[in-house]
């Protein structure tokens, strides 16, 4: 007979209607799936009792039945002998363009003319990172269904806090391909906080230090009466345990005099390096033996001391984002309640030591750092699928970078500032720049800098059909909305006519590597330049607007209202303004605009008188008083 689980009071489901939910930690190196059963969140092991599923997919040659894949441990082993068809760390390529990938990859990437998505050439054909991830998700889905005894109603998948829209969308695409219903994407550190926060219930400031295989994230969370608020996030999307392995690989290569390793040897070096790193979490020294081929062997000993010397610069790199996250959150180190360690790399004793020293507190390691994210995701999934009676947890996430749009002069107007909690909707009113303007281009940007050229372009669309009006009269409301998954939609609406246009930001998969990190640091180092640049552009835009308006007025009324000499004075003054606007001195431009204002004051006065006369001409006093009744 069927096997039953204990439900929350009043939440028993009808037969065959069990709401099965799972949390998936789709990691760079390893992935896990967890589920809540009878109120207990546990990771789900495979038939051999292994919780981790290495995020490795081997593609086998195509035959008449299509292609086959091997996922997990077996694929990891085969990677040594079949490195180009066996894809590891595919998560690093999710939502990325070809330019960002090539330099640090052993794979043969190709890109079709009509597709933005780079693909890896394998024996099974060309596959994208999304397809590779879908294979991993399919394996986890199968494991969860076997364990729970039915099809999954929905899943929560975790992503690094630093994943941008393109990367989140790629993750959703992979889930769709695997036939999974994604209830929500949540940030990995937030999931870790869920796993810990509920179990221990300590109120206060919590730091989540997540050093995984391929990504580093630091998050500062505040827990108040069971509610998590993310105060700030920072990190490095290309830093992790892989780099520790690489440090060891580099050491072996220099010690053994290896200069140009084959793909097979590279895999072997990586596997040996990783094994050595793991051993050194428990031992003082480890023996290394490398098979160089042709009966050529190299062996040596790596001590903990040497190892720590190799990895220290890498671990130190994690401290910089820690400092920034603290500053963004406005928190001092002594206000921190505890530090939660997440990710297999936090097993390295030196990581625990340095993090403990920086935050002046002993890091928490109660829950297996490999499983903690999946467990938190499982709890969220259980909640979202409706197995809990009431909203026990309200999860707030933040947007990692500011979002805004382009205004005249190539400036960025930020609509949603970075570290705003999501989901969120913000609206801002804009107007037209020219008389009779009937369309407006909306250019959506992401980044901290003031100029469009320094931010990342996410999308462009146009609002058409604005009724012709004088410049500045139209009221265009632009609304930015970020849903719970961190995906952005932007809409624009002209308020008087009601014309509307909108876009779902599903950005092109063409992002430069570590761009977010660079964008952030740049915004700090260029803060002063940016303000100057913004001032200059603003004055230039204003000068341009003034010159155009006066030019239009001259064309219309110049001959009627002004003598030739007067016209000459104004023309000359505009000419000077246009010249000065080309310089890079905002103060001089501003001064000149004021001068032009003075020179044209009389002209403006006469125009106004003339138009009043025109309006009154041919009417008797009675008409006018009549009309005003």
């Amino acid at each position, binding site marked *: *007979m069927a096997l*039953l689980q*204990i439900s*929350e009071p009043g*939440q028993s489901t009808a*037969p065959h209607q069990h709401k099965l939910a799972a949390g998936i930690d789709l990691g760079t190196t390893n992935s896990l799936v967890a589920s809540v*059963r009878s109120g*207990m969140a546990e990771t789900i092991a495979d038939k051999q009792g292994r919780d981790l599923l290495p995020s490795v997919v081997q593609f086998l040659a195509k035959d008449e039945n299509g292609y086959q894949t091997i996922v997990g441990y077996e694929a990891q082993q085969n990677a040594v002998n079949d490195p180009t068809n066996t894809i590891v760390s595919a998560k690093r390529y999710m939502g990325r363009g070809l330019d960002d990938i090539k330099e640090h990859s052993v794979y043969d990437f190709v890109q079709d003319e009509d597709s933005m998505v780079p693909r890896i050439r394998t024996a099974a054909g060309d596959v994208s990172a999304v397809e590779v991830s879908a294979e991993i998700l399919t394996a986890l889905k199968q494991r969860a269904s*076997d364990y729970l*005894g039915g099809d999954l109603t929905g899943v929560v998948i975790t992503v690094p806090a630093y994943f941008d829209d393109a990367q989140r969308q790629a993750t959703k695409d992979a889930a769709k391909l695997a036939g999974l219903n994604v209830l929500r994407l949540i940030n990995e550190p937030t999931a870790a906080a869920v796993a810990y926060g509920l179990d221990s219930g300590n109120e206060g400031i919590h730091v989540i230090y997540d050093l995984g295989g391929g990504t580093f994230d630091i998050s500062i969370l505040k827990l108040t009466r069971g509610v998590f608020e993310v105060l700030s996030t920072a990190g490095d999307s290309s830093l992790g345990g892989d780099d520790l392995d690489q440090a060891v690989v580099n050491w072996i290569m220099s010690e053994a005099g290896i200069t140009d390793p084959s793909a097979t040897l590279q895999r072997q070096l990586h596997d040996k390096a990783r094994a050595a790193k793991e051993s050194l979490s428990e031992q003082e020294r480890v023996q290394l033996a490398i098979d160089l081929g042709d009966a050529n062997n190299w062996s040596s000993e790596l001590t903990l001391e040497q190892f720590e010397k190799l990895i220290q610069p890498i671990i130190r790199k994690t401290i910089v984002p820690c400092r920034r996250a603290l500053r963004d959150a406005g928190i001092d180190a002594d206000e921190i309640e505890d530090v939660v360690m997440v990710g297999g790399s936090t097993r390295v004793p030196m990581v625990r030591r340095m993090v403990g020293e920086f935050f002046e507190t002993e890091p928490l390691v109660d829950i297996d750092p490999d499983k903690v994210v999946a467990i938190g995701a499982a709890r969220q999934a259980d909640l979202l699928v409706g197995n809990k009676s009431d909203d026990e947890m309200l999860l707030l996430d933040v947007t990692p970078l500011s979002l805004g749009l382009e205004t005249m002069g190539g400036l960025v107007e930020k609509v949603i500032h970075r570290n705003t909690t999501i989901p969120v909707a913000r609206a801002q009113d804009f107007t037209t720049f020219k008389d009779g303007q009937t369309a407006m281009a909306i250019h959506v940007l992401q980044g901290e800098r003031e100029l469009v050229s320094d931010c990342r372009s996410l999308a462009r669309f146009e609002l058409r059909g604005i009724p012709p009006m004088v410049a500045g009269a139209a009221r265009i409301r632009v609304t930015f909305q970020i849903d719970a998954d961190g995906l952005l939609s932007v809409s624009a609406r002209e308020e008087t006519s009601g014309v509307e246009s909108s876009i779902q930001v599903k950005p092109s998969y063409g992002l430069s590597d570590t761009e977010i990190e660079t964008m952030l640091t740049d915004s700090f180092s260029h803060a002063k330049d940016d303000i100057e640049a913004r001032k200059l552009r603003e004055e230039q835009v204003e000068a341009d607007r003034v010159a155009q308006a006066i030019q239009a007025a001259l064309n219309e009324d110049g001959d009627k209202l002004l003598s030739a000499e007067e016209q000459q004075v104004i023309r000359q003054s505009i000419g000077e303004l246009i010249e000065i606007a080309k310089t890079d001195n905002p103060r001089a431009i501003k001064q000149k605009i004021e001068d032009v204002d003075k020179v044209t004051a009389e002209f403006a006065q006469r125009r106004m008188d003339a138009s009043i006369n025109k309006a009154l001409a041919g009417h008797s006093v009675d008409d006018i008083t009549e009309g005003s009744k």
Partner: protein
Amino acid sequence: MAITLTDAAAKHVVQFIENRGKGEALRLGVKTNGCSGMAYVLEFADKVEDEDIVFEDKGVKVIVDPKSLVYIDGTELDYGREGLNEGFKFNNPNVKDSCGCGESFNV
């Protein structure tokens, strides 16, 4: 008659209740739906209603409402594993027939 638990079931119930951190009893019952007449209810219990009947076996408090008890009196709650899946089973002497999946039954 009474409701009893196997050792495996008792061990898991104690573990699950401890993990949940609140509530101290297990509620067993039946609901009148399902493909074959009635379906089992298996829930954590936060409070005992006046009319509830309370059993205790192997350190586990089990509560049943009187209407349900008619259909499940004498049941032994077991815990078992089928492949990767594991969970609770009702060994109910009152059952005449059940649907293929065993989630609902008739008396």
